[in-house]
């Protein structure tokens, strides 16, 4: 057990932070610390969480100025006895550490994240996407996004331009574009080929550093930039699938 000082940003007119001193075991996470504060010191402290195993993305917040999942951040790994906890940046704060995800999902919706299958395909016939196919290879390590918004909060471009699609939406668009079953190719490419689409990315790699699932989002953005530059190559690649 060790003593930690947790500085939590509180919403309200003064925008002040509250300091709490808590005794934590090294194996405990920041989310455990927040629960401890809520139960024993200040029941009005608000934060969001759900699965507690890093698969829902609900508890994303800024911990020591980096967007992280509170449930996946053990206090020991922070190598600091003062832990500053703030709500995610670039998103409107509802209360304390709770943010409204609307701006993030507004951009997410722009890329048509759902599958738009080819109407000519037999809907009863299951598509087979082998891991060795182009899509199978591309999707590996890119489909783990839990829409926590950490990349959106870390992105410096989102901070200066809220019209920018953001890394998560572009990654989703890339996954759908590489999917041989999908048919909304041109609509998505049009959305990406915009001054606030992929071209706005300045390759700061903040999204890669922040992503709790280790997705190389900048790689997805760069792939999309190249596919817009070389559309024939992109379509050839897309159509080259050993898919029935």
């Amino acid at each position: 057990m060790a003593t930690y000082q947790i500085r939590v940003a509180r919403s309200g007119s003064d925008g002040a932070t509250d300091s709490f001193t808590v005794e934590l075991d090294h194996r405990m996470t920041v989310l455990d610390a927040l629960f401890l504060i809520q139960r024993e010191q200040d029941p009005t402290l608000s934060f969001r969480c759900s699965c507690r195993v890093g698969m829902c993305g609900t508890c994303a917040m800024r911990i020591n100025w980096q967007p992280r999942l509170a449930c996946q951040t053990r206090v020991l790994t922070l190598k600091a006895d003062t832990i500053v906890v703030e709500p995610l940046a670039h998103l409107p704060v509802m209360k304390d550490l709770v943010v409204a995800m609307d701006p993030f999902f507004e951009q997410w919706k722009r890329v048509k994240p759902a599958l738009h299958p080819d109407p000519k395909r037999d809907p009863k016939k299951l598509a087979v996407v082998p891991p060795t196919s182009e899509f199978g290879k591309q999707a590996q390590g890119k489909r783990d996004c839990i829409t926590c918004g950490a990349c959106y909060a870390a992105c410096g471009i989102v901070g200066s331009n809220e019209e920018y699609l953001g890394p998560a939406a572009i990654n989703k668009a890339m996954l759908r574009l590489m999917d041989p079953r999908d048919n909304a190719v041109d609509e998505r490419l049009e959305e990406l080929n915009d001054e606030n689409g992929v071209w706005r990315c300045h390759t700061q790699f903040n999204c890669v550093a922040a992503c709790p699932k280790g997705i190389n989002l900048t790689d997805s953005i760069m792939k999309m930039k190249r596919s817009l530059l070389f559309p024939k190559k992109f379509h050839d690649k897309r159509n080259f699938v050993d898919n029935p």
Partner: protein
Amino acid sequence: MTSAISLTIRKYSWKYAGNLAFWIQRLTGLGLVFYLILHVHTIHDLRDPAKFDAALATFSKPFFKLGEIFLLATVILHAMNGIRLTMVDMGVGLTKQRQVFWYFTIGLGAALLIAGALPMFIYGILRHQP
């Protein structure tokens, strides 16, 4: 208590190398634009031979040589980072972007700076004859 400064340094040192590179590129770019304007303005004023000689004598002073070394460092940083960015755009070294930044941009850049700045320092500053 861990100080805010040490936490901030930790934040920008390794994990956020791309962000650091972005700001280096912006600031060196702005610096070079400012220098270019100053440079063209100075050259423009030197149409008189006597004035030109006087200006060259001023520019060979150790203070200006130090400035030249600083200029070389800015150019190297901007150029090496530019090459790194081109590589990123082509998809080269995307998964190793931190290594590319620290070893290629900063490491190789520092080696180039030493190679270029050493003669300037020895002949322009140490052995400078007024």
